[in-house]
């Protein structure tokens, strides 16, 4: 009970600070919105080639995951700044649970991601996205979970390195290949003309299965093997992210 209260205290404080200065929430949303507006129309004539009837039902799930990955992976920068202000240390010297210090922040990222996701989907509708509403909600939930996992891992890395100079190259070198190999912009499949080696490489990227699952849920196809694998990988990422995160935050001298 105490643990939940502490998580909530941290979460509320973080939300208050973010809402007072929402610049980063808006900047985080700008990238996928730009993709939607400036790249989406190029996909429309290619819909049949990609293997879909509605280009946006294919494209918006990818952007959603991009939002989750990029937004949450860079959460660590905020923690480095907080550490520099002495806030992290001040919190660690209280009797509050260290896991609560992490979860309050992860929760913040998940909630902000949900808000950004709703805006993105609504904008998608304006462009011509159509699909199953219940499925979209499920897709959004999967995105939030992936975001939570990334946020936990990013916060752990930030607390370990305590340096933007280390964080920036590490996160950039992870996020860009992951993004491209997840098939967010175009499907990576031999059936739609991708070379075999590229498909083989992309098979090793968990987020590819998650994007495909979100695409299925958007069309209302829940009961597919693709959806199942997406959910399995999402849960695996959440478990891994939280494990690394709590381990780092509980370490006495982190």
């Amino acid at each position, binding site marked *: 009970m105490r643990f939940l209260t502490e998580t909530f*205290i941290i979460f509320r*404080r973080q939300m*208050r600070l973010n809402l007072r200065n929402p610049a980063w929430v808006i900047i985080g949303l700008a990238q996928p919105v730009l993709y939607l507006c400036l790249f989406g129309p190029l996909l429309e004539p290619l819909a049949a080639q990609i293997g879909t009837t509605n280009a946006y039902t294919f494209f918006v799930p990818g952007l959603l995951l991009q939002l989750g990955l990029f937004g949450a992976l860079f959460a660590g920068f905020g923690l480095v700044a907080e550490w520099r202000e002495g806030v992290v*240390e*001040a919190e*660690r*010297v209280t*009797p509050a649970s260290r896991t609560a210090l992490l979860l309050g922040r992860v929760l913040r990222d998940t909630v902000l991601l949900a808000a950004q996701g709703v805006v993105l989907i609504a904008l998608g509708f304006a462009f011509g996205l159509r699909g199953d509403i219940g499925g979209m909600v499920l897709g959004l939930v999967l995105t939030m979970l992936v975001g939570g996992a990334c946020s936990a891992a990013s916060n752990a890395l930030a607390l370990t390195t305590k340096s933007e100079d280390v964080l920036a190259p590490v996160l950039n070198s992870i996020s860009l290949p992951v993004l491209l190999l997840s098939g967010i912009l175009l499907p990576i499949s031999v059936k739609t003309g991708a070379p075999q080696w590229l498909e083989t490489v992309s098979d090793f990227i968990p987020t590819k299965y998650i994007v495909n699952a979100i695409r299925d849920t958007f069309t209302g196809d829940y009961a597919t093997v693709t959806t199942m694998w997406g959910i399995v990988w999402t849960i695996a990422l959440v478990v891994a992210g939280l494990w690394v995160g709590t381990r780092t935050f509980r370490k006495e001298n982190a």
Partner: protein
Amino acid sequence: MIHARGLARTFDTKRGREKVAVKAVAGVDIDVAEGEIVGFLGPNGAGKTTTLRMLTTLLTPTAGTATVAGYDLAKDPVHVRRSIGYVSQSGSTAREARAGEEIVDHGLLYGISAKQAEARGRELFDQLDLAGMWSRQPKTMSGGQRRRLDIAMGLVHDPRLVFLDEPTTGLDPQARANLWTHISDLRTKRGSTVFLTTHYLDEADALCDRILVIDHGVIVASDTPDALKRQVAGDLIELVLADPAHVSLAAEQLSNLVRAGAADVAGSLVSMRVPRAGIELPGLLRSLDAAGVSLASIEVRRPTLDDVFLTMTGRSLREEAGRS
């Protein structure tokens, strides 16, 4: 209040490809009684902050044991955290937050109710001359105000023992003097025990009942400021001669003051330490006059903690502080 035995911390760092274990703190014994204000004095890098971080549960010691506020550091860190307040060098509040909200949230993390935390916070703001700052953002406060806000953060749960890490570093002289009053108030008005680190000698001298001198991770002295100063063996008399030719004559007269004493000569400056300069001066002046030595000036220096540090470690604390 604090009893530490052989507390040590070793960090692994890389020198080139080799892994090297660096002893930041090489085993210190610390005893602080209830109601004391104890200063932890040493140059930058001596191990002050590392020791403080161990005593406040932020860093696990690699060796040694300690009880802090009655609880074992290793076995019961949560109770230690409940009983102590820690004011770090790096601050404790977000620049963009509101001061009052930060205090209340901090109190909530200690398990105090929101109402209590706010009442306590406002009371602390009044005591620390922060009245009217409740909804200000820390980024708009002066350095001194921010430091007092950090102290208020550390006191919101009414700790019996307060740790202050370099509380006045970076403040202007007025803000420092003002903060000193607040620090001594911690004991007189609240009955707290205070353990503070500093590399300012005047600060340790002005505030502390007792001083621990740390150098290279080892405590080299522990006593009251006055007793430490007495160890330096007396006051320094410095004579500047009007005529440098009389140097040996003056040195002889000065040396006569103390049995087996030998004055130092540097140019036209002749100096020596004597147990109590006040008693010696009248006789010294008379005998110098009789010997025909005329003085350009005479100066008596009481020993400072800087002299203590120099005697203990062979290095001046001011040089150290200036270098970093």
